């Protein structure tokens, strides 16, 4: 006697599990232009680095002689792997089995993913395509078990929430993602979706029945909807691009909250000064400029020398504020900048929520923040009031002022009103360009209101208004602020990169004298 029969069955089960939902289901899936979960994992990870967990989980079928004839694998694939030589954990639904709607073993594996990430403190990546629970449940009639989890079991949402404070989490929507997988998807620091993906709380049929809307799943939850809603950060041109974006995102981050980000060798010169910065801001304040060009001129060039290291996140959500990751002197930093092409860069409710989330994210993984300031204030008007901008904006300011990472602010142009506070962190390093203007209110709006009587009483009201505006504009100049040391330096814009790098070297060395750990905050407005 020996174990050969059982050893053969292990092989047989593994072979059957790799067939996923079967040849036909895989063919149908490919015909939709989509990769299977196993192909996705291979695209994401370093070559041959996937180390699967729970390969044997699933439901076997036997013939009358008791011989194994089939094996339906758990429809969630899970395992460790490597990205650029660093350990990660990756999981995702197998859409070819039950359309990704969890079978019992699949559900267990999916719930276990977050726990493993917490246990081994490694970055977590989820590749989603699948639905939530079925009203019929996950059991067949014949193997019915007691309903629900025991009352003493931990909710599966506890580790889902805890991962965000502990390890970097990046998720992709690569097809229809609904219900529980959609909730997992957004419980991430970075989310990306492909053109033909849709993210839904409930699908078209449920929506039609309840609300009467006749909409496709793309209309309900396609990229047009969720890049603007903020549920999804970035769009990917295809699945390969989604994986490239996830790898790039993780390259800026430490493995967990108990470590600092790695400094890379930097090929780009620390004293590089770009001439275009000297006149990128128009002297006519009615004319806009491109903040992204300033960011790209200041941060490190990309490793391969092509383009900049700036990796923008959530561009379409709250677009008056730019957020993203970059390298400066080889170190990871979070970048914030106003985009005056959208409402002069004003802080909308969405921009405020984007800012708060981004600042908390940078604090969670010890990324210094560089803020390029052109803030005219909170967005005004009826839509902004209805959106509750004042509360979201004040919450963002609280997040900024509770921030514990090194913070530098470069005042490029405007810094007005309460919202300006959202760009200056505690003990921050403050540089001012000659174009900078600060105050309670921009002169153009404020003078007509504050001096209404005086202007009306003047012989030439228009001339008096102009005179007052010129006088007050002079008081908003950065020079008196530099004289009073209310900024560290007023600089030639070309000096921005060298100045920031000198500061960052000091600031990171000081930060790293303490042991890092998770970032927890209290109540905010």
């Amino acid at each position, binding site marked *: 006697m020996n174990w050969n029969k059982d050893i053969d069955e292990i092989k047989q089960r593994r072979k059957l599990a790799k067939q996923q939902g079967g040849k036909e289901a895989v063919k149908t899936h490919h015909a939709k232009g989509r990769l299977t979960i196993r192909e996705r994992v291979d695209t994401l990870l370093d070559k041959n680095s996937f180390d699967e967990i729970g390969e044997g989980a699933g439901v076997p079928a036997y013939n009358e002689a008791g011989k194994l004839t089939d094996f339906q694998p758990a429809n969630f694939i899970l395992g460790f792997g490597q990205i650029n030589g660093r350990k990660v954990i990756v999981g995702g639904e197998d859409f070819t089995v039950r359309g990704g709607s969890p079978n019992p073993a699949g559900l267990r594996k999916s719930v276990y993913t977050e726990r493993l990430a917490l246990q081994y403190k490694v970055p977590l990546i989820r590749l989603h395509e699948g639905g939530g629970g079925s009203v019929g449940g996950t059991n067949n009639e014949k193997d019915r078990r007691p309903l629900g989890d025991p009352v003493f079991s931990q909710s599966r949402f506890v580790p889902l929430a805890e991962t965000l404070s502990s390890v970097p989490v990046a998720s992709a929507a690569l097809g229809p993602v609904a219900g529980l997988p959609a909730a997992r998807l957004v419980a991430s620091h970075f989310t990306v979706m492909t053109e033909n993906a849709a993210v839904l709380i409930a699908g078209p049929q449920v929506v039609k029945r309840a609300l009467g809307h006749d909409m496709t799943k793309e209309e309900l939850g396609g990229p047009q909807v969720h890049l603007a809603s903020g549920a999804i950060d970035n769009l990917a041109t295809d699945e390969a691009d989604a994986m490239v974006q996830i790898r790039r995102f993780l390259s800026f981050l430490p493995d967990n909250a108990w470590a600092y980000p790695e400094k890379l060798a930097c090929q780009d010169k620390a004293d590089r000064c770009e001439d275009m910065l000297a006149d990128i801001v128009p002297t006519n304040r*009615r004319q*806009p400029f491109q903040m992204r060009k300033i960011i790209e001129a200041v941060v490190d060039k990309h490793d391969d020398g092509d383009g900049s290291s700036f990796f923008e996140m959530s561009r379409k959500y709250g677009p008056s504020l730019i957020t993203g990751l970059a390298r400066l002197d080889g170190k990871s930093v979070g970048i914030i900048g106003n985009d005056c092409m959208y409402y*002069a860069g004003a802080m909308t409710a969405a921009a405020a929520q984007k800012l708060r989330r981004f600042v908390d994210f940078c604090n969670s993984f010890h990324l210094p923040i560089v803020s390029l300031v052109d803030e005219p204030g909170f967005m005004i008007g009826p*839509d902004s009031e209805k959106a509750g901008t004042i509360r979201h904006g004040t919450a963002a300011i609280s997040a900024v002022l509770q921030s514990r990472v090194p913070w530098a602010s470069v005042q490029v142009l405007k810094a007005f009103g309460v919202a300006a506070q959202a760009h200056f962190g505690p003990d921050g390093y403050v540089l001012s360009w000659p174009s900078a203007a600060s105050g309670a209110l921009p002169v*153009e709006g404020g003078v007509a209101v504050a001096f209404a009587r005086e202007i009306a009483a003047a012989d030439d009201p228009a001339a008096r208004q102009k005179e007052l505006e010129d006088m007050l504009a002079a008081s908003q100049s950065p020079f008196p602020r530099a004289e009073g040391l209310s900024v560290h330096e007023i600089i030639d814009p070309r000096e921005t990169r060298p100045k920031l790098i000198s500061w960052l070297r000091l600031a990171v060395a000081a930060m790293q004298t303490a042991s890092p750990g998770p970032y927890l905050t209290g109540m905010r407005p």
Partner: protein
Amino acid sequence: MQVKSEIAGSVWKIIAETGADMAADDVIIILESMKMEIPVVAPKAGKLTQLHIAEGDMIAEGQLIATME
């Protein structure tokens, strides 16, 4: 191809004429929004077949500005 405004504002100046061949990023109109002059540009190269607005019009977020082909 529909060109929509990403912001609210008023039409300050119409720059491009109907029938013009546009390159990507060529300016179609300039909106005045929050006291700034914000261009609405051609997202791709093509012919500007129709303008749906006039100077002085108030524009809502997402409003159709021009049609291109």
